């Protein structure tokens, strides 16, 4: 039998096929990554004990149906909220639950404001007519206040523990990053310490119908 060369497959349409697939994936692609503000809802507890919290340790934020902001019973602009929250949380006018004064606070130590970041609670209240956009803006500012304090603390604490020039957000990112070279155990300790020093105590009041 005569040996015949196998006929060459025509690859001219390869580009067309590839283009077709390419266009399909181009159209279906959504590049954005999910991001958002993470929160934890309080569990439903039937036997809730009433804990007495001193009024000065609560920072009330109310958003009414017209998206106006009432902070500690005074009307406030959204842009001033972060500074007010930082001032309240960082006040450190008294003792913590363990009876220690706040030695890392930079606040004015006003006895009429919060005792300790450990005790300070932000209470966020909204009405049914409040718009979601305004609610997220307020949440964002309050989380921003906590992050600002934590970042500042991280920059103070970092050099002592060997993590220079790293704020709290970067610390958390690095901790999650698999490629990061460094002592993760130690980093976790620092993160946990900052988290306990400035705990996020943000209570959301269920609106009354």
């Amino acid at each position, binding site marked *: 039998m005569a040996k015949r060369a196998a006929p060459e497959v025509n690859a001219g349409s390869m580009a067309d096929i*590839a283009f077709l697939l390419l266009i399909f994936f181009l159209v279906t692609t959504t590049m954005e990554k999910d991001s958002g503000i993470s929160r934890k809802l309080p569990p439903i507890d039937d036997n809730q004990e009433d804990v007495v919290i001193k009024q000065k340790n609560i920072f009330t934020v109310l958003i009414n149906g017209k998206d106006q902001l009432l902070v500690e019973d005074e009307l406030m602009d959204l842009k001033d909220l972060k500074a007010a929250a930082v001032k309240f949380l960082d006040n450190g006018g008294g003792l913590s639950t363990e009876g220690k004064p706040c030695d890392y606070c930079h606040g004015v130590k006003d006895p009429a404001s919060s005792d300790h970041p450990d005790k300070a609670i932000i209470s966020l209240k909204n009405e049914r007519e409040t718009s979601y956009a305004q609610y997220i803006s307020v949440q964002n500012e309050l989380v921003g206040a906590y992050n600002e304090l934590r970042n500042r603390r991280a920059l103070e604490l970092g050099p002592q523990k060997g993590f220079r020039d790293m704020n709290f957000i970067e610390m958390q990112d690095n901790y999650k990053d698999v490629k990061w070279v460094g002592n993760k155990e130690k980093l976790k300790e620092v993160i946990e310490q900052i988290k306990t020093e400035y705990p996020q105590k943000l209570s959301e009041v269920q609106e009354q119908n």
Partner: protein
Amino acid sequence: MAKFTKKKSSDLPAVNTASLPDIVFMLLFFFMVATVMRENTLMIENKLPNADQVEKLDKKDLVMYIYAGKPSRNYKAQYGTEARIQLNDKFADVSDIAAFIAAERASKREELIPFLTTSLKVDKDANMGLVGDIKQELRKVNALKINYAAIKGDVSKNKQ
């Protein structure tokens, strides 16, 4: 020198397109890898609010999505203009959330259930009444980890 002058032709040579498939394939692979297919067809308007303190949600398989917003133009006649909840591909009621969470949980491995996060993709024009109802429902089924989906941006953009 004669060697070079001899080859010189007057008309332009055609551009070689032999590597075109390679280039296209390269692009194709890039998009294939980067693609996240939309899981749900949105039947509602879903403009997310802006926030600058956002965290990224990784581990896509451990996220449940609840959408809410006004029905989009095609569905207005049928479902009205009031903001509604969408679960999977259907409009749903607040009372359907419990069943939805149970179904999502059943489809995951048991040891992963505590790590499930609920992502609330709520349109920025929705009001908090609806969101409050969703949150209350999530508390009832003990799905406490939530994430308010937001786009990274300045909060001042929310006012428009």
